[in-house]
């Protein structure tokens, strides 16, 4: 994997809020076509890392690149090419589903007819077609989350940054979301998402384990399992056990 083709890239990234080290010395590169999962407990620095990749926050040191552009300085070059789903559901509660999509389409310069077309496609995909005129604050949590995902997909971005896209969803709906992710992925989209559901790590191409702001392990689910098996001497581990074993390592990954 060469860095030139990386869609998301971080080099020695540090983010401090006062004395707090939210992200510490993270280096990663995600090539085109991958589903990459950032896994770790709340407060591990996943959201901060994603915000830096999206250009919403600047690293204290190190560099962050998205689609080859240095973020946040050159974000204008790539702002049309990626979609971002914040952890808050981030839709206008007093607007209808269609109006939310209309606004987010308009600010990306889409025509009204194109927005209408994409709205039909996405709402049928998200099974929200019959709720098109419903105000967002009347939607259930799951419906709101589907709308939020639709807003991020509307302008057909090639790269997706999804912060905890499945948080709070029931298991059936989570599987449905993962169905969307794999579908998008096979249509050529590169996806970086965060989750604290460890079983979801199994469904990623590659996984980065984060703890205390550092990336402590990285690899395909099977590589991580093998790594954990080597440390513990146990075989046939599930992701939860893998996580527990690898996070107990005294010195790992980027933490120095």
């Amino acid at each position, binding site marked *: 994997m060469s860095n030139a083709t990386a869609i998301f890239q971080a080099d020695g990234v540090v983010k401090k809020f006062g004395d707090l080290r939210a992200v510490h010395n993270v280096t990663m590169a995600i090539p085109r076509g991958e589903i990459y999962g950032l896994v770790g407990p709340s407060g591990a620095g996943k959201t901060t890392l994603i915000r830096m990749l999206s250009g919403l926050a600047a690293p204290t040191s190190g560099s962050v690149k998205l689609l080859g552009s240095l973020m946040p300085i050159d974000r204008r070059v790539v702002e049309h090419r990626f979609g971002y789903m914040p952890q808050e559901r981030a839709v206008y*509660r007093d607007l209808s589903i269609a109006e939310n999509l209309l606004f987010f389409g308009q*600010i990306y310069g889409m025509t009204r007819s194109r927005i209408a077309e994409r709205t039909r496609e996405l709402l049928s995909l998200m099974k929200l077609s019959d709720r098109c005129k419903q105000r967002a604050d009347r939607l259930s949590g799951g419906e709101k989350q589907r709308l939020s995902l639709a807003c991020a997909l509307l302008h057909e971005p090639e790269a997706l940054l999804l912060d905890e896209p499945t948080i709070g969803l029931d298991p059936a709906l989570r599987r449905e979301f993962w169905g969307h992710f794999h579908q998008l992925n096979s249509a050529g989209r590169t996806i970086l998402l965060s989750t604290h559901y460890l079983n979801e790590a199994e469904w990623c191409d590659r996984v980065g384990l984060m703890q205390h702001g550092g990336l402590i392990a990285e690899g395909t689910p099977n590589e991580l399992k093998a790594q954990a098996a080597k440390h513990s001497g146990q075989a046939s581990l599930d992701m939860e056990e893998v996580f527990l074993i690898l996070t107990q390592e005294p010195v790992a990954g980027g933490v120095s």
Partner: protein
Amino acid sequence: MKLHRISAVTERVLRQIWHDKRVLVFMLMLPAIAMLLFGYSFSGDITDVRIAFIDEDNTDLTESILESLQQDQAFKVTVLETVDDPEQLLLSEHYQAVIRLPDKFTSLYYAHFAMGVATSAQGTVDLTLDESDPQVAATIRMGLADAMMDLGEGGPVDIQARELYGVEVRFIDSFAPAIMGFVVSLISIVLTLLSIVREKVDGTFSRIWVSPVRRAEFILGYVISFGLIALVQSLVVLTIGKTVFDIVINGSIFWAFGCTILFAVGSVGLGTLLSALAQTESQAIIFFPLVILPSVLLSGMMWPVQAIPRLLRPLTYIVPLTYSNRLLRAVMVKGLAPWQEPVGFIGVLVFVVLTIALASVVLRQSAGERE
């Protein structure tokens, strides 16, 4: 800067207001209610002050004094034959004044003119006055003086007045411009503040700042929405002012709208500015009285700035509505062009430039510390 992104923000803000019927009604009713309430309660015309009138002289002259008083809408005159103790009468019957013209009033009055000031006794009016409300008392004094003036060649001094800017400007005429500025700025500040705080709370701000929308486009989108709303609100104030109170507008209606919209722009800036100090909607609400009280008390809206104690007067110059009041009154009541009221005009311009510039800085902060 792209027009389609500005209009997207404008359309979205207007849609949000359109959906929230309570806000919509509040927005349209506030100017109407403010105009009606203030218009009626502060119309400045004191009426139905109860006066007892006792004429012990009964001449044409005293008769004409009574007629003048009766024609004055401020008074409800009760004519009594005699009175023993005016003070007792005032207390027992709750008159606000007892006016007694004693016997020989008329002859003394004319004699005074004939003989010259120094040499003779004057005609005397015996006035017993309830001073507990100074405004009512002043009205009675003025009404009585007016009645005496009506006698014709009565006054020792002939005042030849040149009244500028509309001979018959009433309180309500100069009040309408103040209401317009007040309502428009209140709505713009409050709704901008709440809307932006909500964007922060709900996270839609993050979506906007990763999108191609620029800060200037965002602010302009808001400015245009509230400019349009200001126009509608001004129309409501002026329609009610014209139809209900028959207010006099001496100036150009276009200048009036233009200046009101300009003030709304600054208010959007101020609302954006305040949004930086609030993380939640309930924190935002704390700012409402901070905006409303100085505007009502210190802007010269209810009473002239000259009536505010000297110690507090410097404060009036930091209240934006003070400048808007000067500007809109100059434009609507005096019929001047905005630049002919430089203090008000420049004051409002400075308000606009300052708040919009600072709002832009504030938005940079909430957009993340990325620059």
